[in-house]
Structure formats: C-alpha cells, structure tokens
C-alpha cells in the first residue's frame, strides 16, 4: 500500500511540482512569466523577488496536493490525477498573477517584426526518412517474428500488470490480441508523424519549430520500442523494468536533447519576443489574422496552437479524437 501510494500518487505530484518550480527558467530570452521584459530584468532585484514569491507559492500549493493525494489513496483510489490537477490549477493562478504584475509594471513594448527566409530555398527537416522508417520497420519485423513463432505463443498470456508488478489481466492467443500492440505501435507512429507534418507545414518556421518536428520524429523510436517489447512479451520473457527503461529513458533522452539544443541556440537563432497583446495571459497565442496553426511557445519548449485560428481548433479536436481512439478500442477489446 505504501509503495503504491508513493509510486502512483506522490512521485507524479513531486515531478510536477519540480517542473512548475523551475518553470520561470524555461522561457525565451526577453520573456519573463509570459511578459515581454528587458533581458536583464529576471536578474534584477524585482525579478528575483517575483521568482522567489512564485516558488514559495508552488511549495505551498504542493501541501494541499499531498493531503489530497493521501485522502485519494485512502478513500477513492480513482482520483489519482486530482492532486496534480489541483496543483497545476493553483500554480497557473500564481503564474498569471506574476504575468499581470510584470506586464503592467515592467513590461517592455517591442515592435512586432516578422522574418521569412528567401535564400537558400532548401530547409528540409522532415527529409530524414530513415528516422521515420526505422520504427515502422522494427514493428514490421516484430509482426513477422510473431507470425513465424505463432505456435510458441502460449494459449493464454498476461496483457496488463498492476502497480505491484503482477499480471491482473490475461488474453487468449488470437490474431487480435497478439498483434494488437504492433497495431497500436503503428497507430502511435502515424499519429506522431502527423503532428510532425502539421508542425512542419502549418507552423511558423523557427529553430524551435525545427526542434519540435525532430523530437516528434524521434519520439516514435521509444514508442515503437515499447510496443515491440509488449508484443514480444508472450514469446520472450522481458521484465517490466526493461520496458519502462526503454520508454522513459528514450523520452528523457529526447527531451534532454531538445533542452540542450534549445539552450545552445544563439541570440540570432532564437526568435525575438513578440508583443504581449498577441499572447493572452502571457501563454495563449491569439492572432485571428495569422494563418499559422502553431507557433513557438513563449514560455518554454515546444509549440503551441494559435487559439485565434479556427483551423487550429479543428486540428485540436482531430488530435484529441485520434489520441482517444486507441483508448476506446482498448476498452472495447478488453470487454
């Protein structure tokens, strides 16, 4: 019970709290809490005070989160995500308060200058076909291997494990249950590559956009690795921790690579801050006249959608439906 409580409730809450604590660091130069400021402002006395008070509040907000996590674990284990949601919500409020203060008192007016590169005309980040192809080939080989060793697959094999590491759901040897992980692997790869394609072709070009596209391409590797290992588990005894290492290790490595690349961008490579009036609450890009569906995030790594563009909403709904589809299929298959 204690170990489960720590793993399921406290660890995700702790990781979230740490990320939120360091959130002011993950931002473009010249942007502080989502507001455009002088580049040296975060290091000034006022800037440091604002950072410290924000961090203090994050620590304070973590306490009710922990209490709720404890109550959830005792009373209703289904409420696993609630403490994290509460922490994020309260911290968002703290963040917004800092944004208002900085925007009104220390905000810097900047000109909204846009660039387009005319020459050279070649700038293909999506052209690295081998990054895209290898995960698909890996899953294809796994499918062939399973087909070849069909008779070695047990009639009944585990498909789900509890927090204690023991199997709690079993499946019969049918093409649907054996090849389901391979199918989901293909599906997730296509989903990630569709996101990468959208970011490549319908987003404003920037160094961050190119990094995001690359990361979405690379993320198919650990995902394919995970689904390949799951698919192979009925015929090869693969410990759970190996799968966890493949997925978590891969994702952590990709995110670390992205942070490293982002930190090493020169001033010239990094996009200049845009005026605050394009960013609602300092975080939500709202430009109805801008055809870009995605733009570089103002407060950190990755891309964000243009909330003013109705096509961005169409894409967002499509993404949510596509992301939810495997869950629906998994639930239907498990019945």
């Amino acid at each position, binding site marked *: 019970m204690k170990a489960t409580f720590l793993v399921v409730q406290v660890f995700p809450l702790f990781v979230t709290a740490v990320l939120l604590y360091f959130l002011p660091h993950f931002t473009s130069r010249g942007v502080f809490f989502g507001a455009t400021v002088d580049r040296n402002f975060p290091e000034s006395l006022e800037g440091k005070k604002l950072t410290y008070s924000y961090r203090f509040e994050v620590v304070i907000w973590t306490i009710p989160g922990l209490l709720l996590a404890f109550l959830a674990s005792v009373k209703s284990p289904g409420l696993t995500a609630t403490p994290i949601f509460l922490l994020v919500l309260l911290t968002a409020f703290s963040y917004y308060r800092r944004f208002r203060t900085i925007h009104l008192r220390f905000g810097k007016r900047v000109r909204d200058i*846009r660039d*387009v590169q*005319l*020459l050279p005309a070649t700038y293909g980040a999506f052209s690295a076909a081998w990054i895209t192809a290898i995960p698909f080939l890996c899953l294809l080989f796994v499918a062939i291997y399973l087909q070849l060793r069909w008779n070695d697959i047990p009639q009944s094999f585990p498909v789900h494990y509890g927090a204690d590491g023991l199997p709690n759901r079993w499946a019969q040897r049918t093409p649907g249950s054996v090849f389901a992980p391979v199918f989901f692997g293909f599906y997730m790869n296509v989903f990630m590559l569709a996101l990468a394609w959208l970011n490549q072709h*319908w987003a404003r070009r920037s160094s961050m956009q190119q990094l995001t596209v690359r990361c979405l391409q690379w993320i198919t590797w650990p995902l394919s690795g995970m689904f390949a290992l799951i698919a192979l588990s009925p015929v090869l005894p693969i410990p759970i921790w190996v799968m966890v290492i493949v997925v978590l290790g891969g994702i952590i490595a990709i995110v670390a690579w992205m942070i490293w690349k982002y930190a090493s961008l020169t001033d010239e490579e990094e996009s200049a801050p845009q005026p605050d009036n394009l960013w609602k609450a300092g975080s939500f890009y709202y430009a109805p006249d*801008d*055809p870009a569906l995605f733009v570089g995030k103002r407060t950190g790594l990755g891309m964000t959608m243009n909330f003013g563009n109705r096509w961005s909403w169409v894409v967002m709904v499509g993404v949510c439906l596509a992301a939810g589809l495997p869950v629906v299929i998994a639930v239907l298959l498990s019945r």
Partner: protein
Amino acid sequence: MFRLQSPILLDRPKLTVYCMRTVHSEIIVNLRIDMTSSIPAYRQIVDGLRVLLVSGQLKSDTALPSVRRMALDLGVHFNTVAEAYRSLADEGWLDLKHGRSALVIERTTPPTDNQKLQDLAQQFRSLAAQMRAHGVPVNRIRTELLAVAEEILS
C-alpha cells in the same frame, strides 16, 4: 537545419525591410516586415522584395517561397502575399504560373516615363519631409539617401 535569422534592428529603420548575412559561408537572404508599422503588410512585402530584386540579391531563376509558406512565416493572410506577388509580376519581376513557385525573371528596364519620374520624386520629397518632421538633421538625411542609393546600385 533551417536557420531563421531573428530580427535585429538596424540603425536605419527604413532599411529593416530586408537583411542579408552569411552563415557557414552560405548567403542567407531574409525579408522582414514590421507588423506594428503604419505601412500595410502588403506594401512592406512589395517594397522589401523590390529592394532585393533591384540590388540583385534575388537573381533571375530564383524561386521564391510559396504564398502559403511566406504567409505562414510572416503571419499575414494568404491573399496579402498573393497580391504582393501579383503586383511584382505586373512590374515584370516575377513569373507566376499555377502550381509552381513564383520565379524571379530577367527584367528589361522600361524607358523612363516623365510622369512616373515626377511621381517617384514626389514620394522622395515626401519621405525627406517625414524625416525632417521627425527631427532628422539635413546632413543625416543626405547621408541616408546616399547610403541607400549606393547600396541599391552596388
């Protein structure tokens, strides 16, 4: 890797419409517009591209980015870019064919029209008057105009 150049404001604001620089011995040519300027985006695109065309930084047979790509990067409506391309095509700088990138073409300079010359001279005077109105000294205006002329001619 795409190397987008972040905007660096030059000392001379009228020259911020474009920039050219060398990265890894490769010449990178950018078009830059200021969305906070009172000059419409369409006009800035046309003017900026014309500067690059006249100065020879965009040579004939160069393919410009597609309307969609340029509109996405500049954050303006597709029609704004399409209209700018059409305007430059009417001036004889670009060849626009459906389903293909706008192509820079060899342009034969038309004979000087007296009426057109007067119109342009009027615009020149208007610009100089604006600079004076903003408190730019006469000597500085002369230097700026000469620098612009030399930059275009070189």
